[in-house]
């Protein structure tokens, strides 16, 4: 399997506080990866760091390669070519992610000019085509509208159109539906799925909601406190989660079928960056904790082909049953 994007040992810290503590991840061309975790786990920081979109005071170590080309520390003109042209990114709050004083057609045309050299009528025609593609009705007229004249769902479609303008090989969608209503969320996820199939584009879907990645992704990586704690194909992750945190996340989802049971809530909270435990970061909240867990950070154990978990006790499913809190 060839690799499109490879992250190796990616570490990020802000003013001495580590936010990302060593990420290893590979994305194959056309693959859909879900990146799941709660606030502060570093799932967004990972991709902002890879594209050098973090503010200046962030220190980045490690490697992020795109088709073999190193992105960390690359010169500005390389990064400007990659951003939008080979890796595109869309963000959480579409209403504030678009420039309020520029018409959306102009913002789209900017991307077309930068990455495909289109200007004037050609650009406008292509912008209209992209609007049609993402399902914005009355495309020709809407090109001249401003972002505030669209609803949240439509703004996100505009963002997706803008992201596609550069014909990227990979799209990173950072919580694209979190700020949207549930029915609109379904529309957007549907759109992402069909676009991905049509263009064979790789997709990284970042979310705090396991349910959201379930339908859309081939593989899921679960993050906790700046590290990846489990990685598996989607079906396997939901059928046989190995890491206690993953189990906890699944247990925390209220079931929609079956008897109403007390939710298996993970006790406690995520440790603060300055109070990170020496060993496994999840150990203080883990029901399966043993002495060895505090000794050092567990490395990834392979449980099955393509299924890894960073837990010393990953091979003992019985020990990891979470008690309802």
């Amino acid at each position: 399997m060839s690799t499109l994007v490879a992250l190796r040992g990616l570490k990020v810290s802000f003013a001495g506080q580590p936010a990302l503590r060593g990420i290893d991840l590979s994305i194959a061309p056309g693959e859909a990866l879900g990146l799941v975790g709660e606030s502060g786990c570093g799932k967004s920081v990972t991709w902002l760091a890879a594209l050098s979109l973090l503010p200046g005071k962030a220190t980045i170590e490690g490697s992020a390669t795109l088709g073999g080309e190193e992105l960390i520390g690359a010169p500005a003109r390389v990064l400007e070519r990659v951003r939008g042209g080979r890796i595109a990114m869309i963000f959480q709050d579409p209403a504030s992610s678009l420039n309020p004083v520029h018409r959306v057609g102009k913002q789209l045309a900017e991307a077309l000019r930068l990455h495909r050299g289109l200007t004037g009528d050609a650009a406008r025609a292509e912008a209209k085509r992209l609007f049609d593609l993402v399902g914005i009705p009355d495309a020709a007229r809407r090109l001249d509208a401003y972002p505030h004249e669209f609803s949240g769902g439509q703004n996100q479609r505009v963002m997706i159109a803008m992201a596609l303008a550069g014909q990227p090989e990979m799209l990173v969608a950072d919580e694209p539906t979190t700020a949207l209503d549930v029915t609109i969320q379904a529309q957007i996820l549907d759109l992402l799925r069909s676009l991905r199939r049509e263009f064979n584009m790789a997709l990284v879907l970042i979310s705090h909601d396991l349910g959201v990645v379930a339908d859309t992704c081939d593989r899921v990586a679960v993050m906790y406190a700046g590290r990846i704690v489990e990685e598996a194909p989607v079906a396997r992750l939901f059928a046989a989660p190995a890491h206690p945190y993953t189990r906890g996340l699944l247990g925390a989802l209220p079931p929609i079928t079956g008897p109403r049971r007390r939710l298996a809530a993970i006790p406690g909270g995520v440790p603060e960056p300055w109070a990170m435990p020496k060993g496994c970061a999840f150990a203080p909240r883990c029901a399966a904790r043993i002495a060895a867990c505090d000794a050092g950070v567990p490395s990834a154990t392979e449980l099955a082909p393509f299924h890894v978990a960073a837990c010393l006790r990953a091979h003992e499913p019985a020990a990891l049953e979470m008690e309802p809190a």
Partner: protein
Amino acid sequence: MRPDASLLDATGLVRRYEMRRGIFGAAVEVRAVDGVSLTLERGRTLGLVGESGCGKSTTGRLVLGLETPDAGSVAFEGKPMPPPGSAPWRALRARMQMVFQDPLGALDRRLTIGAQVREPLDIHEQGDAPARAAKVARLLAAVGLRPDQAARYPHELSGGQRQRAVLARALATDPALLVCDEPISALDVSIQAQVMNLLVDIQAEFGVAMLFISHDLRAVRQVSHRVAVMYLGRIVEEGEPDAVLHAPAHPYSQALVSAIPHPGKQGTRIVLQGDPPNPADRPTGCAFHPRCAAAVARCRAESPDLKARPDGRLVACHVAHAETALSRAA
């Protein structure tokens, strides 16, 4: 259901706002709530579910008497709701409380948690000083906070802990009704689970009735005894949570249920076309008909009433009732 068990009766609530389109635009009337009736029983939870603009938060405020409805009435414990700000209304605050989405905004930055949980007792003059202190300790324990956390300030606690503090404060005067407006949306998934468990525990321990307002059907199913689905200011379906979730009768509920992101979901997904409607631009007839796959001519002309089906489900849909009539006749 015994009639005297009903804690709160809201009938035909209507709430209108005037909005102006732009700086130079004409005034437009927005009906945030357009004829909502609901009943809350003692010690039970009614879940109110819907998307942006459906009017669920406004309904919550009307139920508490924080706003006066433009039409319709609210009766709490058999008596009509006094106007907001009046002395009887303020006394009634001890019987009903609200829990909001943002716990940090709901807490005073400059008071300790203990002081804030105690404040309702001071305001309503319940018990003497030692009794109040003991009550505060009991409440903190009931919500899962440690005694030493009473001396902390809100910014020193995590999001989940703050929401627990808000709950403790809301329960201080032993209210009969708790209106929770999106109480878990701002929290992380694992903390959401903790707070949902807590809400169920609190209801068991204190016997408090709850109006649980949320856009998340999963959460609503977890904590509610009954669920009402709202769309553009009206209730379009009401029934038992499991029944509504597994066999939704109204086309909007069907789309809502089908849109829930859940691992291992069965069945085809119904993807609604179009955007949530603008309350200022209300469609004629049934508000949902422009986006409804099952709409017929009658839907454009006539707005359906919320009526009971033979199995007890309340639905506001011409097509849903016609189908029932057909299947009954067959």
